């Protein structure tokens, strides 16, 4: 088992004829992801690495039964691509595109809700159910099938952590990069709930960042609803206040969203917080040993 995607997931790649879309479509396919179609308006009928290209999502879904879509189009077209996927009948959309205007995402959110479409991202690395399906730009070779679930606001930091897990022989059920934008799709709590309900997942790693209060909310949710152990890491513990560090998410302002507050919230919820990524496997082992005692 896994969450959100597995080997039956039929993936559509929006923006498949662009530089990144093409590169990652091939990589996803090489990983074993069931990439059934690509979309690029005006390029319908072409093929990319054997993947048929369609003019629209609706056509692609009709012809291939695609149920999940990954978006590689430029930021200013990303919101429209997400909506095209949603109206086209796609149930899970992963938006890799970086730099999408916040007002676009604010407008997209209630439409997706109405249409019953789940979104991951934008500005996210995607997700993976190791050895079954990789969607996005994650480096597949560092992941390994196993029992750890992982949720992260970061991209490369996720790889760093996963690498540590895999080196410690702790494989993963599904790893999800939810992205660092202020307005994003599925968030910690949505995914924690899914992991809690996934019989294969034994423990969860949550990688947070300074900014916002999503980690605090997650901590509360864990305390109230989760039976499975969770270990956390917070990036930006030494970041100077008022500075925006790359992610729109990573901004500290006016005494909220600091690493201290987040760490305190996790401590209160009984969630250990690692000082550095390399510490995570040990904390997980301790938690799991305790849980199975």
């Amino acid at each position, binding site marked *: 088992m896994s969450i959100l995607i597995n080997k039956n997931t039929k993936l559509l790649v929006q923006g498949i004829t662009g530089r*990144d879309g093409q590169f*990652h479509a091939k990589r996803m396919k090489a990983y074993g992801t069931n990439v059934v179609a690509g979309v690029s308006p005006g390029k319908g009928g072409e093929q990319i690495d054997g993947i048929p290209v369609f003019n629209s999502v609706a056509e692609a879904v009709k012809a291939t039964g695609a149920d999940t879509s990954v978006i590689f189009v430029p930021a*200013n077209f990303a919101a429209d691509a997400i909506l095209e996927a949603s109206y086209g009948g796609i149930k899970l959309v992963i938006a*890799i595109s*970086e*730099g*999408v*205007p*916040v*007002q*676009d*995402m*604010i*407008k997209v*959110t*209630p439409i997706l809700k109405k249409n019953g479409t789940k979104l991951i991202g934008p500005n996210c*690395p995607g997700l993976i159910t190791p050895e079954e399906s990789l969607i996005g*730009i*994650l*480096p597949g070779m*560092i992941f390994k099938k196993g029992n750890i679930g992982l949720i*992260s*606001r*970061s*991209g*490369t*930091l*996720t*790889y*760093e952590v996963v*690498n540590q897990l895999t080196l410690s022989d702790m494989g993963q059920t599904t790893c999800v990069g939810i992205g*660092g934008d*202020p*307005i994003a799709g599925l968030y910690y709590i949505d995914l924690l709930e899914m992991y809690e309900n996934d019989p294969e997942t034994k423990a969860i790693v949550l*990688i947070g*960042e*300074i900014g*916002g*209060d*999503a980690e605090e909310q997650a901590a509360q949710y864990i305390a109230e609803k989760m039976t499975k152990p969770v270990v956390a*890491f917070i*990036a*930006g*513990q*030494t*970041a*100077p206040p008022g*500075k925006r*560090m*790359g*992610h*729109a*998410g*990573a901004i500290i302002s*006016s*005494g909220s969203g600091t690493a201290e507050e987040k760490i305190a919230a996790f401590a209160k919820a009984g969630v250990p917080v690692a*000082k*550095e*990524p*390399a510490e995570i496997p040990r904390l997980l082992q301790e938690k799991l040993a305790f849980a199975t005692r």
Partner: protein
Amino acid sequence: MKIHEYQARELFRQYGIPVPEDVLCHTIEEVEQAARKLNRMVVVKAQVHAGGRGKAGGVKLARTIDDAIAAGKKILGMDIKGYTVEKVLVADAVEIDKEFYVGLINDRNTKSVTLMASSEGGVEIEEVAKNSPEKIIKLSIDPLVGLLDFQARDIAMQLFGNMQHVRQAVPILKKLYKLYVETDSSLAEINPLVLTPDGQVYAIDGKMNFDDNALFRQPQILALREPDEDEKKEIAANEKGLSYIKLDGDIGCMVNGAGLAMATIDMIKLYGGSPANFLDIGGSSNPQKVIDAMTILLGDSNVKAVMINIFGGITRCDDVARGLISALNVIKTDIPIVVRLSGTNAEEGLTLLKQAGLPTVGSMSEAARQAIELSKAYVQK
């Protein structure tokens, strides 16, 4: 992106929000002219991107033209939290009966724009939130529907409690929302929104931030940008696809991804070092970016060692290696560099670096440790 008060007031005017008359002044002569033109009680206000200018003496009321000139002399050129005041706004000082706060902000939790309003105006809303949260009215605005008349009226009614004032406040709230959405704002505050003794409602001070990701479609807003020196560097980096923030340590870092970059800085500090910057080369595989990034990094005279930490996803490690080799061919430096590459095409990248004689390490923590050691060694030279 931030703008000055005088720019926010001008945007308010464009959208039909009533703002008292004002003149932007760069010199004492201009202050005098402005005071003569307005010819009544004025307020002289420093225009700097720093909070707390009132407490710092950057806002002064002037009853006469001489007062205004004196205020201008004091404020122009003064230092507020490291910012030199280069311009002041000379504004008609309307009489104030009551002060209110209204603001719009992108709300991560509701995933919508939230309207906040309070009868406690003229102070920072964060203080009100801390001391008397019950005095803040919040409304989450449905982005597909917008701010409805009755919603604006309900809020205005709670603030003013008088239909004559409510009728003025409702269009102000609606126009502020329109301005917010149409300019891709991420914060728009009127603080204070005031009621004068003769029953008029005015926006006195305004604060607006904008979504950097949307500036491509906001040429009018982009034209308002007035960055300071540090910001200019950050913007220049941004234009090259880099996220750069100068810090005050001596270990230059080049990392891909904001989270990993923050974790790298955290780790350097955890191990007793001091990072010179935050530098995220982002998620695309362009060797030129690495060249640009190294140029910026090594342009900081504080840097005593460089730690390069790349975990390739969309970034290809071989591209980074190639960019690094090219950069070091152009920028001759004796500053020690430690490189860590993992992920997509790491093998190819490491091979290239080894061929070029650059030192590589196996993990992030190893890289941090070595960089700290090398920085100390470099200082000792």
